[in-house]
């Protein structure tokens, strides 16, 4: 067995990798996801720019464009549409690469999923543009959007399930055809992520189909507000892990190859993903710590479970940095930290995700603060929270996805990842980090001074407390707007990079980097692949964390709420 951490014969190895191209039909399916993702991205970015400027009082929005309308578009297009389409595109490409070409039947199912998601996205976007759905991406009732907004969101979720069926069947077919073999890491991680997504989606689908849609169509008069919120956050927290897990996949599976090494351990990588699957769902109450109708005990139980889900992130941090150090040392890196110089800093495929990892250090620490039970009162619904998730999803996940796009897009379109694209990527990454430093940094501080999130320009009758949010040297809405302008420049550059790599770069081959199997691959404990066991435990944990409080919400519910649709226009 090869004991080296380096991919020996890297030249042959990468030749080999280039030869194992993704089937052209699978590439096309993957690429159509990317078009939607990046179109949504650039519209979402400009939404963010307008928000930042309007909130800072630097511009006034025209009368036909509402602040909350743009806010809804920004959240839906970036947090839901960009991420979901990018992730499914990435999954189809990676599964085609590591598990062989999809069968025609499965590929058709994949297309059906894509078309359903796209239809849902278009319907939702039209409703937002018509100002019939300015309810933000959390769509808390009893504010009520047009029923088609909910129909569109349902189609996005259902479409993603159809696509998941194609991906999961592809994985289990491979497993059946290769009995006793450990499955490729990419497929294992895709499966864990998709099971998480399906189990989580059941919550929001139940809420929309049984509660909100009948109520929006006028079939029922009232809605149980607390139950919809609980079902939303049952979905909403695993949603963030649905973003993070594919980013971690890139760290685990792609980055080791990019830096010329191999992943440190396969078992630990799999264990981390199982822990994410188990503990990211029964934790939704940590988004509801400040509301009535849920007792302190159940909130605390879910707070404990929330802290457990930090453990796989700790595992990930160790694995990734161990991979970095081993690879760097085998390449001749010396010293306690001197080996860091050996890493390929000039390669954006490494550099962008690495900056994302750095951002995750303050982001993760902020997350622990948010989840800290009574301490949440200090930051709940303030700009602190917005600063937090612009680090987690807006920096860690996005920079990792961008880092992957630089090789994935040309690999899918049969083009070359050029030096020019690499240079643009490095500049893009720096701009993004600098913009985020100003924007997210100022948001965190403004939040500590009590500035609310999701709120248009307001000085509250020139109250001194509200005025200080505009007058701070760094902690000011003006700083947020400046950061937003820099981020917009970075966003435009990223869109250019996408267009260049998709249509303009010279024809040729680009490597789809996948780590060679870690040394411990033959010794992976069999229980890690026992999906029935893990799904069983997921269900038990959900039943434990949710049954009693949800039962109380239903049986002991106050009179429900009628629709309030006039408040959003």
């Amino acid at each position: 067995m090869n004991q080296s951490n380096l991919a020996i014969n890297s030249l042959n190895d990468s030749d080999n990798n280039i030869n194992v191209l993704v089937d052209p039909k699978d590439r096309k399916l993957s690429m159509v996801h990317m078009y939607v993702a990046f179109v949504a991205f650039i519209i979402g970015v400009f939404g963010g720019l307008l928000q930042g400027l309007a909130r800072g009082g630097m511009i006034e929005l025209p009368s036909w464009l509402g602040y909350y309308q743009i806010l809804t578009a920004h959240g839906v297009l970036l947090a839901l549409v960009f991420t979901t389409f990018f992730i499914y595109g990435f999954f189809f490409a990676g599964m085609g690469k590591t598990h062989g070409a999809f069968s025609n039947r499965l590929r058709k199912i994949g297309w059906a999923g894509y078309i359903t998601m796209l239809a849902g996205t278009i319907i939702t976007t039209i409703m937002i543009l018509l100002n019939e759905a300015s309810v933000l991406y959390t769509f808390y009732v009893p504010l009520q959007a047009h029923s088609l907004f909910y129909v569109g969101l349902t189609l996005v979720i259902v479409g993603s399930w159809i696509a998941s069926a194609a991906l999961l069947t592809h994985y289990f077919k491979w497993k059946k055809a290769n009995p006793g073999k450990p499955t490729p890491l990419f497929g294992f991680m895709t499966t864990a992520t998709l099971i998480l997504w399906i189990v989580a989606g059941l919550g929001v689908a139940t809420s929309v189909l049984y509660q909100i849609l009948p109520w929006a169509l006028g079939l029922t008069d009232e809605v149980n507000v607390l139950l919809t919120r609980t079902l939303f956050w049952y979905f909403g927290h695993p949603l963030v892990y649905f973003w993070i897990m594919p980013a971690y996949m890139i760290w685990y599976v792609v980055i080791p190859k990019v830096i010329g090494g191999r992943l440190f351990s396969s078992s630990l990588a799999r264990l981390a993903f199982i822990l994410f699957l188990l503990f990211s769902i029964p934790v939704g109450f940590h988004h509801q710590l400040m509301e009535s109708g849920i007792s302190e005990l159940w909130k605390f139980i879910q707070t404990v479970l929330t802290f457990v889900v930090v453990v796989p992130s700790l595992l990930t941090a160790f694995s990734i940095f161990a991979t970095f150090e081993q690879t760097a040392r085998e390449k001749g890196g010396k010293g306690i930290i001197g080996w860091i110089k050996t890493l390929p800093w000039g390669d954006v495929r490494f550099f962008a995700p690495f900056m994302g990892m750095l951002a995750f250090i303050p982001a993760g620490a902020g997350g622990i603060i948010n989840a800290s039970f009574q301490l949440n009162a200090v930051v709940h619904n303030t700009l602190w929270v917005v600063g937090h998730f612009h680090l987690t999803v807006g920096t860690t996940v996005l920079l990792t996805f961008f880092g992957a796009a630089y090789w994935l897009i040309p690999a899918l379109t049969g083009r070359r990842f050029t030096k020019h694209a690499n240079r643009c990527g490095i500049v893009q990454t720096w701009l993004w980090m600098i913009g985020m430093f100003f924007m997210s940094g100022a948001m965190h501080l403004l939040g500590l001074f009590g500035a609310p999130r999701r709120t248009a320009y307001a000085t509250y009758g020139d109250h001194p407390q509200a005025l200080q949010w505009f007058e701070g040297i760094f902690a000011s809405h003006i700083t947020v707007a400046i950061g937003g302008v820099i981020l917009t420049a970075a966003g435009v550059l990223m869109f250019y990079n996408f267009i260049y790599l998709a249509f303009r770069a010279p024809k040729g081959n680009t490597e789809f980097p996948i780590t060679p199997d870690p040394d411990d691959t033959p010794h992976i404990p069999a229980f890690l692949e026992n999906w029935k066991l893990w799904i069983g435990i997921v269900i038990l944990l959900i039943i434990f964390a949710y049954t009693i409080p949800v039962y109380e919400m239903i049986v002991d519910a106050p009179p429900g709420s009628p629709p309030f649709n006039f408040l959003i226009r």
Partner: protein
Amino acid sequence: MHLHKYEKIWLVFGIGSLVLFLAVLGVAAFAFGHQPPSHMAKVDSQNLDQDVAFSEPGVTQINDNTYQARIIAQAFSYKPSRIEVPVGSTVYFEITSADVVHSFTIPETNINFMVTPGHVNMAEHTFNEPGEYLVICNEYCGTGHHHMQMRIEVTE
């Protein structure tokens, strides 16, 4: 499954920190009573005018320096829109909503909680400094959300 020695140290340190953090939160909550606002009382949000507690919202004095403030949040104001208490008073806020989800937030204090229709939420605060305190809604409640505010006048 093999764990590297350094990985064991890292995990023991990491998990140990998490356990310590949780212990601090748990002791503060269950021994000292610093719980997040989780009031269980319910009301009929569409008929608050017939409600015993909320038909006449406002401030009531409970004893020397303790007050109860019952306030209704509604798009896009609070009822009443101004209350007055002497400095040094402890105020028990009981808030409910007449329509959609709001919050009751006094910036730079620990008073910051959700107000969901059908439920009453509460928290207490002692006002040790005189002045005009700003109360805002920090949960999006419609087109006029950023105008939603009230004042608490803490007098000498």
